[in-house]
Structure formats: structure tokens, C-alpha cells
């Protein structure tokens, strides 16, 4: 069994009177697609936001590839190799699809003010390389023909793909997708599933939050279930599916007892 790429230990987060996360621990192995599911308000997105640095945790720590993650500092976490997409798509609307992906390269580039003004050979090389890589990533997610379209003019499914391409541009080792299938029709969901499988095939580790239980169960290597901020199960999909606590969380106590 391979060592975990990401290990969260005892993560707690409270918003006023709401305990959003209670001592959540989980570990994600390199190369797997790890699903995080739970009813609405279970704390999935809160956990995500802690992991990617948008929130700091009240307690607990996350180790990524053996190093503690600087929680609350998103740009450093992105630099260490965790990239994310958002539940409600957050693209840079006024930019073209290509430029959105180029922004994703930001942290891997080094051109400063002087380099940019003087357009040094190094800066020029970097710029050309950035553009070429951005095109390659758009091709990878299948929307290179839309490179020069304004991001907001893309269809919903393509915006999702663009967000994934932008996240991939940061060269992540863990790609965190927050409900990527939300609002998608069946065709788009199938396309998304194919894309995630392609990512797994290329060795990417994926953390997937999803409401679409069918998608998660069919796609993920392992699944964790959150309920009221607590992890109630973590195992392969077939075991999690039969777990009475999981059934209770989704369908209510009586259904589990029945």
C-alpha cells in the first residue's frame, strides 16, 4: 500500500455556533480518485476550503507529501501542488479561455516587473512557453477550439472543463474538484467522467466532492462520507454503500433500520 499523498488529522472548523468540521481525519493516496460525499451542509466544501487554504482550521493539521500545509495561505498551497475548482464556477470572465489557463501558470513563472518591461529573452521564452502549455491543456480537456472565446461565453460544461484546465496549469499533484457535475446533463456528466478517468490514467490524484452518488460510486477508488461535520465512513465504494450510518445519514434512521 502506497504512502498517503495527503493526510488530514483532526481538522476542526467552527463558524460562530456552527461546528462545520469536527476532528475530520482522512488520507488520500497518490494516484487514486478519492470521493468525498455527504448530505447538504455536511461540511464537504468547508473541508475543501481548509485544504486549499481559503479557510484556516481551528484545530488539526494537513500533511501533503510529508510536509505540513500552510493552512490559510492559498497561494502557497497552490505552489505546493494542490489545485481546485469551485462549486459555483469561478472563471475570470473578461478574459479569453486561453488567458484563464495562462493565469493558472502564474505561480510557475518568474518574470518580474523589470523582466516584463524590458521583455528580456527569458521573459519572452517564458511567455511563449506559457501560451503553448495553455493550448496543450485546453486540448487536453477538449476545448482548444474555444481558446479565443471569452470565458463567460462558453457553455456550462465547457466552463467546467476550462476551470479544470486552469487548475491543471498550476501543475498540481492533487486536483480537488468541488461538485464538478452539479448542474450538468447526462451527456456532460459522461464527458466529465471520461475526463477524470483520463486524469487518473495519467497519474493524477483527484479529490472529488460530489452530490451525484452514482458518479462517485462508479468512479472513485475510495470514498469518505461526511455528516454534520464528522467523517462517518471511509472505504471502497461497495463497503461505504452498505454502511448503515451512511444510509441513515442520507435516508434517515428508519430507512437504515428497515
Amino acid at each position: 500500500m502506497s504512502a498517503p499523498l495527503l493526510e488530514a488529522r483532526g481538522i476542526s472548523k467552527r463558524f460562530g455556533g456552527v461546528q462545520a468540521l469536527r476532528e475530520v481525519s482522512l488520507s488520500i493516496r497518490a494516484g487514486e480518485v478519492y470521493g468525498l460525499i455527504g448530505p447538504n451542509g455536511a461540511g464537504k466544501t468547508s473541508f475543501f476550503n481548509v485544504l486549499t487554504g481559503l479557510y484556516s482550521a481551528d484545530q488539526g493539521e494537513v500533511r501533503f507529501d510529508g510536509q505540513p500545509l500552510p493552512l490559510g495561505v492559498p497561494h502557497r498551497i497552490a505552489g505546493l501542488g494542490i489545485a481546485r475548482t469551485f462549486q459555483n464556477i469561478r472563471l475570470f470572465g473578461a478574459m479569453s479561455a486561453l488567458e484563464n489557463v495562462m493565469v493558472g501558470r502564474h505561480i510557475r513563472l518568474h518574470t518580474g516587473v523589470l523582466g516584463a518591461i524590458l521583455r528580456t529573452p527569458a521573459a519572452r521564452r517564458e511567455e511563449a512557453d506559457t501560451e503553448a502549455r495553455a493550448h496543450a491543456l485546453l486540448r487536453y480537456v477538449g476545448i482548444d477550439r474555444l481558446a479565443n472565446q471569452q470565458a463567460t461565453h462558453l457553455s456550462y460544461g465547457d466552463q467546467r472543463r476550462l476551470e479544470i484546465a486552469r487548475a491543471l496549469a498550476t501543475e498540481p499533484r492533487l486536483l480537488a474538484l468541488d461538485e464538478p457535475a452539479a448542474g450538468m446533463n447526462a451527456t456532460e456528466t459522461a464527458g466529465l467522467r471520461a475526463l477524470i478517468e483520463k486524469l487518473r490514467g495519467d497519474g493524477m490524484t483527484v479529490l472529488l466532492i460530489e452530490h451525484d452518488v452514482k458518479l462517485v460510486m462508479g468512479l472513485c477508488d475510495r470514498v469518505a462520507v461526511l455528516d454534520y461535520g464528522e467523517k462517518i465512513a471511509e472505504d471502497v465504494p461497495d463497503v461505504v454503500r452498505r454502511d448503515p450510518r451512511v444510509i441513515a445519514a442520507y435516508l434517515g434512521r428508519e430507512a437504515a433500520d428497515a
Partner: protein
Amino acid sequence: MSADPKLKARLGIALIGVALAVLPFVVGATFGNSWVRIVDFALLYIMLALGLNIVVGFAGLLDLGYIAFYAVGAYLYALLSSPHLATAFPALFAVAPGWPVWAVLPLGALVAGLFGVMLGAPTLKLRGDYLAIVTLGFGEIIRIFLNNLNAPANITNGPQGINNIAAAQIGGHALNRPLELFGVMVPGVHLQYYFFLALTLLVVFVCVRLQDSRLGRAWVAIREDEVAARACGINTRNVKLLAFGLGATFGGVAGGLFAGFQGFVSPESFGLLESVMVLCMVVLGGMGHIPGVILGAVLLALLPEALRWGAVPVQQSLFGKVLIDPESLRLLLFGIALVVVMRWRPAGLWPSALRKRELAAHGEAA
């Protein structure tokens, strides 16, 4: 037959170059040299508007106190190129400081840039209206400081301002005096024009280069969605401070030029209305679009002068008397222009189009 686009572009640049080179002579001959002076001011406004454009247009941070950086540059130039310090502090300054312009302008840029960072640092978490209020306060603080720093030590000479500021000297020649070149007398305002034009072109160049870079993209990303920008690995704190600092730098340079040009500075020149004016140039022209911002600056710099020149005779011939004095008319028209533009062209007169990239065209063909 279609001409080579590169050749076309070069031809266009050459034409614009010639037009800019002969502009003061044409304007001077047609309208008189006072209009060349107005063109000089338009150039200063272009610099200011482009500086503010970095903060407001690119990074989306609403700054209502931008004129403070203009003031910092202007006062720094004034103190270092006038007898004021020697008069006020004879013990410290035996002779009046007369710093050369090539030293004062970069220093002014640097100090204004530091002030920009000083304003940016405490306001990093603010956006929109809240940021606007704080920056407005900052602008007023600077002006009030300049107004009151004549006691206990007379540093700024208070509301009277500082006069006898030496004009910028280039190659030993003061730019406010005419120069004979190849048998042609070139008036001082023309020399100032070329000096300002050179620096304006430099500012445009810097803006274009920054816009097309990793930093320009990061600014726009912050403007479009700050949370997503952070998740993409952008250190929003540093990138925002850079926007504030660089924007202020241009203001500082323009301020130094203004002081040397006028020979006199006083706090009156740096009021809130001036900040609003520069902001309007950016918004009317087209936020975040360099040619649009330049257009906005030129239009708004020339409008009051055109009114001063035309409003009185037009009213005389229409009504036989002057009903509205040009100054009030200016604000009236200004307000109408703003409302009209915001109603029908909310993105500005010349808004930025989506940038297309050449390489993409190749990719599409393949």
C-alpha cells in the same frame, strides 16, 4: 493586394510619430502658444490616467485619492529645486538645493511609489466602496498635511505654496526658455512638450509591457475574481501592492513635471476634484484599455479649455450676453457627458476588446 500587416503597422507608427513631432508647431501657429501649454497639460493627464488605470482599470481597486501621489511628486520636486528650504532652514541649507531633473524625477517616482504601498498595505482587504472611502481619506490627508506643514517647521509653506521652482534643465538648457535649433526659435512650451511626450511614451510603453505580462494577467484576474485568483496561486497581497506602488510611481513623475512646468505648487492643485477628474478620464475612456484611457485623458483635459475658448463668444452671438460662465458650464457638461457615457457606453468610449492571440489562430487552422 493586401499590404504586409507589419509594414502597415510600421507606417502607422511613423505617421503618428511625425504628427506628434509637428503637433506643437501646428497648434502654436493655429491657436497660439497658450494652446501648446494646454497640450502639455493633456500629456500630464495622460500619465496620471495611465497610472490610475493600473490600479482601477487592471486590478479593479477603486482609488479616489490618486492625486495624492501627484502631490508627493510635485512637492518633492518643488523642495529640491527651489530656494524654499534654504529660506526656511538657513541653518541646514547654506545654498538652495538645485537637484538635476534626472535625479529628482526618479526620486519622486520612488517616494510616490512608497506612498502607494503605504496606502495599499492597510487597505488590502477592502474592496469597492470601502476602499474608495479609505483612499479618498488618504488623498485628503496628504492635501491637509501639505496645507498645514508650515508650522512648527515651515516645510511646505502652507497654503501659500512654494514658488520660484526651477524649470527642468536638459543639457544645461532650462526648458522654460526658448532655444534656437537650426536657425528656428523653439519656444519653451514646445521644449516642455517634447520632454513630456518622451516620458508619456515611456509610460505608455511600460503600461503595455506590463499588461501583456504575467503581472498584467494577475491584476485582471484579481479584478475578475479575487478568490479564484488566490486559488490559482497568485499572491494577491504582493500583486495588489505592486499595482498601488507602480500606479503611484507614474503619479509621482507627472507631479514632478507639473512642478517644474508651473514653477509653483500649492495644496489647492491637489484636491478631491482632481482625483475625481483623473478617475473620470479612466472610466470615460475605457477602464483597463490603454488607448481608451489616453483618449479619455485627452478629451477631459481639452474640454474645459475648449469651453473657455468657445463658450463666451457662442453665448454672445446666441443670446447677446453670457448666461452661464464657462467654469460652471464645464461642470455641467462634464456631468452630462458622464451620464450619457454610462447610459450608452458603460464600458467607456473605447473599451477593450477580448485579446486574441496569434498562436491560437495557428492552432485553429491545424
